[in-house]
């Protein structure tokens, strides 16, 4: 490496040369192997420093966003299946399994009994809640029967989902198909949150407020459709 070469190399890489100077320099590079090697080395440093700085800046931004709370947990879709056809297959298997389980239940249950005789949230939670998503803080509160706190968390998450959906809609970088997919994920999360809200409301003896949510869930294409329908009917019969 030669210090004498470095100024010209830097001017060339940082576009600080006139057209004539560039041409002259490129000619010199073609004729001087040592200069060529030093140019390539400097170019490697420039690329590496730039790439590293951009990555560090992105990481700092993500950390800052979360510290400021401007981006929510809901910014992360709970589950992305590897391929749509696999998801369809899972739906089919789940559907067949559900029909089988329901059939078995009706065959074995004593005549006249209901799936849940007393729909308290902990009973409903243990029987129906699928879990596995990232609402662990709400799950914990429900398990601890701290329903007010669970409701507060749910409201926060609902706000987050609203912000997230706005973010997705405004995102110019995603195409139509991706947008539909992201919105589908958001809808899934909304339904899960509705279900958790139902559990919290039942825990607070606010069944009347839970009913419209159950009504929405039983009409939606979601994991809780059947359970919501069953619970809706039970509360209505009381």
């Amino acid at each position, binding site marked *: 490496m030669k210090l004498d070469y470095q100024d010209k190399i830097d001017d060339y890489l940082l576009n600080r040369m006139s057209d004539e100077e560039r041409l002259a320099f490129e000619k010199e590079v073609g004729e001087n192997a040592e200069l060529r090697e030093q140019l390539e080395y400097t170019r490697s*440093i420039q690329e590496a*420093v730039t790439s590293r*700085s951009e*990555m560090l800046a*992105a*990481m700092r931004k993500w950390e800052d966003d979360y510290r400021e709370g401007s981006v929510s947990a809901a910014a992360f879709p709970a589950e992305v299946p590897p391929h749509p056809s696999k998801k369809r297959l899972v739906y089919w298997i789940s559907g067949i399994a559900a029909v089988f389980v329901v059939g078995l239940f009706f065959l074995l249950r004593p005549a006249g009994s209901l799936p849940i005789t007393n729909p308290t949230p902990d009973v409903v939670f243990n029987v129906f809640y699928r879990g596995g998503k*990232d609402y662990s803080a709400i799950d914990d509160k429900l398990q601890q029967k701290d329903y007010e706190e669970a409701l507060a968390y749910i409201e926060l998450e609902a706000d987050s989902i609203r912000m997230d959906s706005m973010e997705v809609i405004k995102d110019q970088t995603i195409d139509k198909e991706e947008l539909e997919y992201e919105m589908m994920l958001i809808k899934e999360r909304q339904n899960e949150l509705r279900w958790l809200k139902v559990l919290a409301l039942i825990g607070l003896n606010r069944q009347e407020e839970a009913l419209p949510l159950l009504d929405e869930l039983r009409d939606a294409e979601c994991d809780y459709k059947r359970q919501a329908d069953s619970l809706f009917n039970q509360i209505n019969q009381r």
Partner: protein
Amino acid sequence: MPIYRKLDTQYSDAALVEGMFQHNPRVERAMYFHCKKYFEDNYRSVFFVADDDRQDIFQETFITLWQNIQKRKIFVECGELRGKEGKAFTGKLTTYFMSIAKLKYLEWVRKTSFGSYTNEDITTLASLYKDLLFDDSIDDNEVKLRIIEECISHMSERCSQILTMFYYEMKTLEQIMVELPTFISKDALKTAKYKCMQTLHGSANSIYNRYFVDV
């Protein structure tokens, strides 16, 4: 509870890698918090360091993972995650991530204790370098480039500042002198920058000779 613990993601490994390769900002962010959570939960089984150093090791590990994805060192084919020589991954992405973290930790040990590796560490490091950062199929120049990228993460704070301001922020020497007033002349700054580049060059050659020629 740290806030990122709420941000864990259930993206599949393949979706994360492909999303990062496609520069999807949402996936990049999801990958960051996915790795961060796993790292925080598991680093103690690999090494033990103070909080600040742990954060540095995580950051360097994530950068290397990101670079490996961008350079197709790991990639997705037919929905399957693949790595060295195009072979399918047998483990999880987080396991791969922690292997890089171990490499970064050993580098950190070298940096802080002036090379007091055990023989076992040297063997581990050599093997990790070859397995994780480089590929037998790439040529010498590419290997050297990857080593330069690696060495940049171990530069002194001062060198890092000078080269970042000069090559990334594209500041002139005069502008850098305003921000780094310890340099009293333009020539002194120019010489310092050149020495940083020379040191980097020496470190890169040393790693190349140590792990790709000697071993």
